[in-house]
């Protein structure tokens, strides 16, 4: 650093930064691990010069200056190197001598994170910890008129249906006539949502797949995982584990050449096909995998050249009307697997969701609708999209469920809710609440990274550098020097851990509600909230 820095509009002091690194000179061993591990090079070795004035007693001797030098840690204040608060420095420090602190009064950086005219892009989700889902309470408790169930010992049906379920009349007619039945999968109601190979590191992907396989094959839990828009490793496509996988196709069609060519060699059908039209984190925007994450492996799986940015278009290029985008694409994808695989669209929650849903009700091949709320996470999006675009999931889902009830199709088209579930750690409570508002199942992504791999990101704008390929935990990095930190076996273990604990907690919610034979989908009479406006909007009880 220059001793006299030029003062420009973007010259910031440490006080201007939201994350300020506190370093303790007394305990620091100067080992250098913190500066080595810092993903954004926010700290560096500091050589400090110190002047001391020595004044002797009496009048005869004149005061003298003494100069000394000492070494330590200096936080850089250039906006490009601002600390992200990940605290990896603290994680590696042998003496706990260093850690970042969040200063909420320091807001200057947010006016200067657009250097070169580049808008801020980041990973994570909406930077707000508010959660309506956390406010929902389960108020209908079985006690005397119907005895409460024993969550630990009673038998619970914890499966849901993914696929177009025929109406009872159509089902019987189909049975009598031996007609075509739309494929329906019985799966666990917590799905790992689409996080692409490319957005996630190979180790993270492998860990998730192993965890899912273990849950299915050892724990008898039919858990499913969606690939996201990044293709699927060829070996997985040709393995029996494909049946646990929901293949996603999105506007970039990345990896679909490989997938289509692998169809004749597939031992199993995939669980389902998800056609992504939108996602909650960045409604109306497409994928944003930048060149620095597109290495040889990612390029090969996606079927693109190496080292180029891969911004997916916001919409499918085949689309020029809703009939085109929804009806024909669903039909084409169904046809590719001989109508044996459920195909459903995923959209970002929006005030136009009902239009899509009404279209699906009339389409006999539509297997469901996934709706992703404003709190959905992503590996890369513009900050403005993430923070300000989108619709909350609860009211959007509720509207959709009620429309299905009007159409009599509430059992025919499963709604899959996502976006902000478990945002504050309350995964089971949030999931149960959404099911009672009408979701057949829920999708989570960010929670999986946080619980499964120790993602450090938070809604306090901590870390959130998934888009840069420098994820300090190796979850979203494509640099083998970084992602080797992440042991796939340990990820798999954590995935199993949080699924089992989710399962227990879900039973702890459903048992007192008296529900065990089927999931309480749409059991809105069991929900209450202390916010009158929210209660009226969701058509649930207002409780204070």
């Amino acid at each position: 650093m220059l001793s006299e820095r030029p003062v420009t509009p973007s010259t910031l002091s440490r006080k201007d930064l939201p994350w300020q690194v506190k370093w303790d000179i007394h305990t620091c061993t100067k080992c250098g691990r913190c500066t080595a591990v810092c993903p954004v090079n926010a700290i560096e070795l500091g050589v400090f010069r110190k002047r001391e004035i020595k004044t002797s007693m009496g009048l005869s001797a004149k005061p003298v200056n003494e100069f000394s030098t000492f070494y330590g840690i200096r936080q850089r204040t250039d906006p490009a190197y601002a600390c992200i608060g990940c605290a990896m420095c603290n994680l590696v420090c042998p003496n706990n001598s260093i850690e970042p602190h969040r200063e909420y009064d320091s807001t200057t950086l947010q006016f200067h994170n657009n250097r070169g005219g580049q808008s801020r892009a980041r990973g994570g989700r909406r930077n707000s910890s508010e959660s309506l889902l956390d406010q929902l309470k389960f108020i209908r408790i079985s006690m005397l008129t119907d005895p409460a169930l024993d969550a630990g010992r009673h038998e619970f049906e914890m499966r849901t249906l993914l696929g177009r379920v025929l109406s009872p009349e159509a089902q019987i007619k189909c049975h009598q006539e031996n007609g075509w039945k739309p494929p329906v999968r019985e799966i666990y109601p917590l799905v790992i949502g689409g996080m692409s190979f490319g957005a996630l590191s190979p180790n993270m992907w492998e860990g998730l797949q192993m965890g899912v396989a273990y849950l299915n094959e050892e724990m008898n839990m039919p858990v499913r995982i969606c690939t996201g828009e990044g293709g699927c490793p060829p070996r997985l496509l040709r393995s029996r584990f494909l049946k646990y996988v929901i293949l996603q196709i999105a506007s970039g069609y990345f990896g679909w050449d490989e997938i289509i060519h692998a169809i004749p060699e597939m031992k199993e059908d995939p669980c389902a096909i998800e056609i992504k039209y939108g996602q909650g984190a960045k409604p109306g925007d497409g994928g944003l995998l930048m060149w620095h994450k597109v290495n040889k492996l990612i390029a090969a799986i996606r079927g693109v050249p190496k080292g180029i940015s891969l911004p997916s278009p916001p919409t499918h290029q085949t689309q020029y009307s809703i009939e085109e985008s929804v009806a024909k694409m669903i039909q084409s994808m169904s046809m590719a697997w001989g109508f044996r695989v459920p195909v459903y669209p995923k959209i970002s929650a929006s005030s136009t969701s009902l239009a899509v849903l009404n279209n699906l009700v009339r389409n006999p091949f539509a297997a469901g609708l996934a709706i992703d709320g404003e709190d959905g996470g992503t590996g890369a999006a513009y900050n403005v999209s993430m923070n300000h675009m989108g619709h909350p999931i609860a009211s959007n889902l509720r509207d959709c469920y009620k429309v299905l009830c009007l159409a009599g199709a509430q059992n025919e088209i499963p709604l899959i809710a996502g976006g902000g579930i478990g945002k504050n750690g309350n995964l089971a409570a949030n999931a149960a609440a959404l099911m009672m508002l009408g979701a057949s199942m829920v999708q989570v992504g960010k929670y999986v990274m946080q619980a499964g791999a120790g993602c450090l990101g938070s809604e306090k704008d901590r870390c959130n550098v998934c888009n840069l390929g420098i994820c300090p935990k190796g979850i979203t990095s494509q640099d083998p020097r970084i992602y080797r930190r992440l042991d796939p076996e340990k990820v798999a273990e954590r995935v199993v851990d949080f699924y089992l604990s989710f399962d227990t907690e879900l039973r702890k919610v459903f048992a007192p509600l008296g529900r065990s034979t089927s999931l309480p989908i749409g059991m809105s009479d069991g929900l209450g909230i202390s916010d009158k406006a929210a209660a009226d909007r969701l058509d649930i009880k207002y409780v204070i």
Partner: protein
Amino acid sequence: MCRLFALTSRDPVSPMHAINALNVMKEGHDGSGVGLYLSGLGGPFENLKEYPILSGIFTEAGLRRLDGYMADKGLQSKYSLLFTPASEPPVGTPRRGTYASIAYRVPAEWKHLTEDERGQRLVQMRLDLRSSGEEIGDMMVFSFWPDTIMIKEVGDPMEIGEYLQLGREEIHARHILAQGRQNTNYAINLYACHPFFIEGIGTMTNGENTAFVPIMEYLQSRGVTGYSGYQSDSEVFTHIAHYTTRKLGLDIRVYKHVITPMSDDEMAGHQDREFLSNLKKSCRKLIIDGPNCVIGCLPDGTMFMTQDRKKLRPGVVGGNGEAGIYAFSSEICGLNAAIPDRDKSKDFQPMHLDTAIVGPDCREVVQCSQKDPLPLQR
């Protein structure tokens, strides 16, 4: 918990038999309602099997309005059974007016209607009368169907039985459903009082239906006239029975598969596994998640009882095939009081997978398990 008692007999019997049995089970009801469903009628209705009977409670103005309504629709009264109690009502029972059961001759042009269309008209007329009665306050209508009488009132069953003289020979019946209500979470409302009825199917239930709201929403969205009301969470059981047998054309033995389907493991070796597995998926919204015990009667006089596995106090069925009388009761003491002369070793409590059925001939209790092969579908 509500007390249920049902009697099915080859020969018409007095409804007071059922009321007496409810009285024995007195500790379980609180006088918040008693309901009776009578079919296979004896007495003057014996020879009027084809004529729909309107049952309800009317004020004088209500009766006049009813006459006008029926005349407008072209229905003529064929036989009227009107009972206006002379005595003071028991404490807690309001004085309402006339308890009427009136058989009507339908217009000649109805002959061209199909059975379903005729049924729908009758249901629609009942609903119209009910809703206008709720608005004006001059009538309450419980059923409008051939060979069916329904009586509901608030009060202790025995006192109501005496007050309304329910032992009268005019209302002797072969098939009787009777319920003594214990009010739990709903307001005292006669329309919340069991049994419930639609198009020849009557059922009553005790227990708590935890899946009430999703089931109600599903039934309401079927577009079937009469799937409405729902003052009680138990009304859905009647409509599910109606939906299963009339709309889906399935045998009553499939009813249990709809409301409490088997788990995949239980279903594994079943010869109709594919049908049942698909039925479970498509009727997922009709799974009750009780604990509930359901007793019902079908248009041909077949009576059944079934309950889910969470029902810790299961109902019981027993009787005497030679004498041609069987009873379904929520408690054994009710059965003992009604039919003391029976082989008690043959009493049957349908559990987990069972449905107990007594045909109109009242010869035996047919025990069906969900593991049994299904009857051929109609």
